[in-house]
Each structure stands twice: as structure tokens, then as C-alpha cells.
């Protein structure tokens, strides 16, 4: 099955390894960030493909997601197995496997290698973290291990670029000399029953696959293979299992026991461990960092620093981006003639691009923090400390940091869910992350609390209301997660078993690569969609620009010098625009919330990005689009009457101000978040679901707030 006679064939290898082994670093260093993401329907994992040239040999690498075992129990895990075995129709079978293993924890890391040994492909073993092993007194004789296993064993330190040439040479020399790995030993009964299943698999078979079918008790793999390869396997598998059971063999434990026993036999002659266990650096640090009191203190200290950093460092950068955007806008306005093209470029495209770039500081800073925490080993401790709390809403400790990050902004928060291995947990976290009150909601809270909940109340009152607004997210998000995990995302996930890796100095190249990847993938995939949405919203606020009586608004605004008249014309234009008409037509829907059509328009216009609401309110309350003074807007809101009619009552009272704030707290008014959810889940279903459930929830909550509030008024 390897004879593919293409004239310019590159050598294909699949890279396998446990999590925390430096697999991604090795992949990045080998391919030099020269990679792309493979597209496989129906799965949420990202599988990267890269390539490099060594001694004029083209090598292609497929980066298989980090895993402890090639035992598929979900479509994502199945894809990894299919790619390794060449069963996926979209990829050819690899020519060899490269397994990376953590030398400081060799036995457990080799478990995956023993599975790779059964695939029938040549295997190269790369050992990382040799320095950590040496520091803990473990000595590995690489040459002896290589001889014992009969395959190349190469010590590497990818971020310091050590051992890479040797590794590349070994890969290249596999093209001419195939050194096959040894086959791990099972008992004779297992071997004979495995052979029976192997016979049924035909040319798609391998010892590994036959063994998997025999050991996998939940039947997922068998069902999938039967469907994909149109084979009948289940009767033979069940028969073999019964035969083994009757011999007193426990099918659940036999695989792990045999593999670990075999690993020990291979490793023992080649590895020397210290006689007496010295208390390592990690043990000493962990005594503090996972301590009941100090550990929690340190955890909150780190979270606090991360947040302060996120707000304090990102704010000036975001302001610079805003200023740069204004400068470009002014430049365009001075060179372009007044008209639709200028408006499209300045108010549509530039706003759109600016609206994308403005997220970058937060993404870069958050991922800088997160990748340092992840790479030094602290992230697993944070998840360990917070697991109990998160377990109460059906999630695990790994969901805590993405949710907390969403208080700054849900976009990096959703991206940060990549650390969550369990698919359902990750999805539940993504779905509830936008409920956390992000920084873009703050201007709305500040404006309305300032206008309606400050004067005549105690000095502490505005702060309390603001706190409660944030509290809405902190309470609703876990409740929603609990609801999703017990309904649509119900099911027994993988048990929460998490390795607590050894502490080490974070590597600059790893941190840089993660920041680069998060920013780049955001810009490339979500960014284009966000910019497009902003242009769309510009269009529905621009068209039609001629009224039914034939008045051309942009021309008339340009013709007049009077600012008040300009603002009045702008208001009339926007009222007449498609969005304005939509806002007026939904008035019956927003009236029970205590809003008139103007609030309806401002809310509709802020669906792509809630931060535009203050600007839109300025327009619909007749202040023009660049109201410099927020105080002015605040006073106008206080005095505003229903439908601008002096005989009508005041538009806002405490219940309607609260209903608006509650609506903004819960509603999914962020196109960027939805696009990132689309990017991360690979389907339009989940962003649509998020939008519908959040908007529905916001509407009901705002309705209750206003109606219940009116009872007390």
C-alpha cells in the first residue's frame, strides 16, 4: 500500500505525542511557521500540515493533536487515528511516524509509542525535556534504547534547535532504509484473537487497528469502521471477546497492563533512576502553589495581574488604534470628494477594519499571559484549584480562565477555550462566554447609571448597580452552562484526568508562536467577516439616501453650514434608512421593554458591535454622529420624551433604564464573537444558536425588569 509512483513525491510523516511534550514547538521549529490548517468536515480539532526541505528532500508533516492514547471515542479522536493509519479519504497514508516523548516521564509517554509501533509504519522516537530528566537524576542511554527498540531515538531540544539536524537526517534516511519498530508483546490468546480480526480488515488492516477493535469496549470504533469500510466486524469481535473472557482475561485492563509491562522491559536496561527520591523543584513549588491558602492567594494574585495588565496595557493601544483610524479617516475625507464612495470607505470599510484591529491588543496581551502560564506549567495548577467550583456547573477547572478572560472581551475568551480537551465542556464554555460582561458593555452601563441612577441616590449606589450589572454575567453564565451540559450537551464526557506537568522556564519561541497564531487566525478568518458585517451595517444605515419626496440627504447636509440643521437632517435620513425603518417597525416589540423606536434603532444598529450604541444614540437623539460631550447626551436622555412629543411622558425612568442595561448585559450584540465562535466550532449552527438564545434571554429579562419595575413605581 506504500507504492505510490508519483514523479515528485514528498515524504510524509505524521507527528504524534502526549500533551505537554513540546510537540507543537517541534512542529513550529521544523516547519518554520510555514503551515496551513487542514480542513476536515465534522470535526472541531485543528490539524496542521507543514513542510520543510532537508538535503533537497521535501518532507511533509501532519501534526496530530496531542493525545495520551490512540483510542478513538469521539469523531475528533477518530480523525487522528484515521490520519495516522491512512484511512481518511482526504489524506494519503503517512510514510512514517514521528513520536515525540517526554524523557522525564518516559514510561507513560511511551504508551502512545507502543500503539504507533503496531501501525506497520516505520517510527522515529524523539525525546524532549532531557534536561529536566537529567536534573531529576534520570540518566537515559539513548544508544542502548535505540538498539533495544531497533529504531532511531534522538534527543532534541526544539526551542534551542538542538538535535534537529540529527532528527532530519533520520527522517531522510528512512526513505532508503526502513527500520521497522518492534511489536509490543501480548499474551498468545490475545495475539491469536487479534489475528482473526486482522483477517477481516483486509488491506486496511494493521495490528494496531485489530487490537483496538478487540480492546475498545464501547463499540464506537467498530461502528464507524463498519460504516466507512462497509465491513461486518461486530460478530467476530464479540466472539473473540467472549473467547478471551472465558479464559479469564480482563479485556479492559489487559491492554494497559501488557503495554506498560513491555515498556518497562524495554526501558529498564537503558535508564538509570536515582536510588533515593530527592524532593524536586516542582514538589517544593507545588507545596505553595497548590496550598489551600497560599495557593489560592497566589492564584488570585495572578488573575488580578492578568486583568490589570489586560485593561491597563490594552487601553492605550486600543486608543492609538482609534486615533490612527481617525487620522486615516480624516486623510481620506480630505482627498476624496464628498459622496457615497467616501462614506463607504470612511464610515463602512475603515470602521470595519478598525473594528477588527482594535481586538488585537487584547488578544496579544491575553495570549501572552496565557501561553507563559501554560508553558511554565502553572495553567494545569490553576485548573486544579478551580475544578471543584467549575464542576458544580458541569464544567472543569479548565473552563475558568476562558470565562474570566471574557470579562475583558469574549473574543480572546473564546479563543482561550482551546485548552479544554473535552469537546462538550469546550462547547459549553464557548456558548456561555459571551454572557460575561465584557469591557464593551461598560460605556452603556456608565451612561445609563450616570443618567438615571446617580442623582438622588447615595454615593455608593452607582457602584452597587455597576457591580450588579457585572454580577448578571457571573451568575447567568454558570447557570447557562449547567443547563446546556444537562440538555443539549448532555453525555458522559471523558473523565477529568489532567497531568500536572513539571515546572519549567517558559520558552520565548513557544509564547511567540501562540500569540502569532491566535492573532493571525483571528485576523484572517474572523477579521474578514467582521469587516464585512460592519460594511453591511453601514449600508443599511446609508440606503436609501433619497427620501420618498425626492430629498437627497447627503447633498442637503453638504449644502448647509448650520450644525443643528445638519444634525436634524442626519436624524431624518437615519430614520428613513432601512435600519431606521426596521427600528420603527419593531416598536411594538420593544414597547413592552419601555423603549421607543429610537432605542429600538440604536439596539438594532449595535447588534454587530455593542460599542457603537453610544454613537447611534447620539444620532437618533439628534446630536449628530460625533457628539463630543457625553454629558450632553446624558442630559438629552434624561429629558427625552416618548416619540419626541412634548406632550408625552418622559421616555426613561428607572425601570426602562434598567431594562436597557439588562438587555445589553445579556444580549449577543457582537458580530466578532459570533465569527470567532464560527471559526472555533467550524459550523454556523453554534453562532446562530448563541445569537438566538442570548437575544431571547435578553428580551425576556429586559421585559421582566421593566414590567416588574413598573409595579413598584
Amino acid at each position: 500500500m506504500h507504492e505510490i509512483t508519483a514523479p515528485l513525491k514528498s515524504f510524509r510523516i505524521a507527528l504524534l505525542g502526549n500533551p505537554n511534550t513540546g510537540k507543537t514547538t517541534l512542529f513550529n521549529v521544523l516547519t518554520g511557521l510555514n503551515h496551513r490548517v487542514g480542513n476536515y468536515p465534522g470535526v472541531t480539532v485543528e490539524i496542521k500540515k507543514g513542510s520543510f526541505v532537508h538535503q533537497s528532500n521535501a518532507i511533509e508533516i501532519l501534526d496530530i493533536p496531542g493525545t495520551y492514547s490512540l483510542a478513538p471515542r469521539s469523531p475528533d479522536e477518530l480523525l487522528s487515528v484515521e490520519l495516522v493509519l491512512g484511512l481518511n479519504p482526504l489524506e494519503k497514508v503517512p510514510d512514517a511516524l514521528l513520536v515525540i516523548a517526554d524523557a522525564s516521564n518516559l514510561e507513560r509517554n511511551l504508551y502512545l509509542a507502543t500503539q504507533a509501533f503496531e501501525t506497520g509504519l516505520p517510527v522515529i522516537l524523539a525525546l524532549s525535556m532531557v534536561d529536566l530528566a537529567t536534573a531529576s537524576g534520570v540518566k537515559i542511554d539513548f544508544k542502548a534504547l535505540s538498539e533495544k527498540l531497533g529504531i532511531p531515538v534522538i534527543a532534541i531540544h526544539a526551542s534551542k534547535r538542538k538535535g534537529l539536524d540529527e532528527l532530519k537526517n533520520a527522517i531522510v534516511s528512512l526513505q532508503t532504509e526502513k527500520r521497522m519498530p518492534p511489536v509490543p508483546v501480548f499474551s498468545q490468546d490475545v495475539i491469536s484473537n487479534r489475528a482473526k480480526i486482522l483477517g477481516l480488515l483486509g488491506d486496511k488492516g494493521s495490528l494496531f487497528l485489530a487490537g483496538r477493535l478487540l480492546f475498545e469496549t464501547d463499540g464506537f470504533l467498530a461502528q464507524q469502521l463498519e460504516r466507512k469500510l462497509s465491513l461486518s466486524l461486530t460478530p467476530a469481535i464479540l466472539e473473540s471477546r467472549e473467547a478471551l473472557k472465558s479464559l479469564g482475561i480482563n479485556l479492559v485492563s489487559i491492554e494497559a497492563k501488557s503495554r506498560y509491562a513491555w515498556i518497562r522491559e524495554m526501558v529498564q536496561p537503558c535508564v538509570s533512576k536515582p536510588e533515593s527520591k530527592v524532593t524536586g523543584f516542582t514538589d517544593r513549588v507545588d507545596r505553595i502553589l497548590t496550598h489551600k491558602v497560599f495557593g489560592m492567594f497566589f492564584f488570585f494574585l495572578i488573575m488580578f495581574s492578568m486583568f490589570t495588565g489586560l485593561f491597563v496595557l490594552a487601553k492605550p493601544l486600543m486608543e492609538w488604534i482609534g486615533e490612527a483610524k481617525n487620522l486615516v479617516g480624516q486623510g481620506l475625507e480630505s482627498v476624496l470628494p464628498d459622496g457615497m464612495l467616501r462614506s463607504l470607505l470612511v464610515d463602512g470599510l475603515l470602521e470595519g477594519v478598525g473594528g477588527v484591529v482594535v481586538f488585537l491588543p487584547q488578544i496579544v496581551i491575553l495570549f501572552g499571559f496565557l501561553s507563559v502560564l501554560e508553558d511554565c506549567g502553572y495553567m494545569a495548577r490553576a485548573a486544579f484549584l478551580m475544578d471543584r467550583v467549575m464542576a458544580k456547573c458541569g464544567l472543569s477547572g479548565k473552563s475558568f480562565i476562558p470565562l474570566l478572560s471574557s470579562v475583558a472581551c469574549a473574543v480572546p475568551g473564546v479563543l482561550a477555550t482551546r485548552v479544554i480537551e473535552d469537546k462538550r465542556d469546550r462547547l459549553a464554555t464557548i456558548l456561555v462566554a459571551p454572557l460575561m460582561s465584557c469591557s464593551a458593555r461598560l460605556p452603556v452601563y456608565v451612561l445609563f447609571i450616570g443618567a438615571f441612577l446617580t442623582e438622588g441616590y447615595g454615593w455608593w449606589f452607582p457602584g452597587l448597580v455597576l457591580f450588579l450589572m457585572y454580577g448578571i454575567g457571573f451568575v447567568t453564565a454558570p447557570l447557562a452552562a449547567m443547563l446546556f451540559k444537562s440538555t443539549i450537551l448532555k453525555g458522559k464526557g471523558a473523565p477529568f484526568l489532567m497531568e500536572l506537568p513539571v515546572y519549567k522556564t517558559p520558552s520565548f519561541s513557544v509564547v511567540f508562536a501562540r500569540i502569532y497564531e491566535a492573532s493571525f487566525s483571528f485576523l484572517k478568518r474572523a477579521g474578514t467577516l467582521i469587516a464585512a458585517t460592519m460594511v453591511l451595517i453601514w449600508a443599511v444605515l446609508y440606503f436609501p439616501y433619497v427620501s420618498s419626496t425626492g430629498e437627497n440627504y447627503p447633498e442637503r447636509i453638504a449644502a448647509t453650514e448650520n450644525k443643528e440643521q445638519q444634525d436634524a437632517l442626519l436624524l431624518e435620513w437615519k430614520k428613513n434608512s432601512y435600519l431606521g425603518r426596521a427600528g420603527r417597525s419593531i416598536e411594538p416589540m420593544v414597547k413592552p421593554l419601555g423603549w421607543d423606536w429610537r432605542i429600538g434603532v440604536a439596539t438594532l444598529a449595535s447588534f454587530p458591535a455593542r460599542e457603537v450604541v453610544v454613537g447611534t444614540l447620539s444620532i437618533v437623539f439628534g446630536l449628530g454622529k460625533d457628539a463630543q460631550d457625553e454629558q450632553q447626551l446624558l442630559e438629552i436622555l434624561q429629558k427625552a420624551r416618548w416619540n419626541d412629543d412634548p406632550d408625552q411622558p418622559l421616555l426613561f425612568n428607572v425601570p426602562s433604564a434598567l431594562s436597557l442595561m439588562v438587555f445589553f448585559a445579556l444580549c449577543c450584540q457582537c458580530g466578532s464573537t459570533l465569527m470567532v465562535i464560527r471559526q472555533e466550532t467550524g459550523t454556523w449552527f453554534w453562532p446562530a444558536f448563541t445569537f438566538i438564545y442570548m437575544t431571547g434571554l435578553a428580551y425576556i429579562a429586559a421585559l421582566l425588569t421593566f414590567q416588574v419595575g413598573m409595579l413598584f413605581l
Partner: protein
Amino acid sequence: MPTLDQVPIGCKGIISSIKGEDATAQRLMEMGVIEGEPFELVASAPMGDPLEIKVQGYRLSIRKSEAALVFVQVS
């Protein structure tokens, strides 16, 4: 015989068996929690759950619900 969630912090011993035949038991064993292996219960998280154990020379965070499936022999 006690299970892993019942023994005190700092306790060392040998894993004697894993209860169950499902994917959870299988996952535990893949991670090296198999009969005959020495273990050490290192710590518990601030609210008592999850637990941190040392097994196969590395540290593993395991929830009490899964630890309850692991029968151990205290040395």
C-alpha cells in the same frame, strides 16, 4: 479495601484494582493507573476535590468520583 478517595493525604501504597469496564476505567489505565503500580497521594485542591497523585513518576489530577474507582493497598 479502601479506594483512592478514602486514604489520607501523604499516603503511599500500591494500586490493587480498577472498578468498572467502561471508557473511564480504560482512560485511567492508559494514564498509568493500573494494578500493581505504586502511588502517592500528594495533595488535594482547596475544596478537597480533585486529588493530586503521583503515579508512573508523574503528577496526575484526578477527581474524587474517579478516585473512588481505584482500590488501593496502603503500605
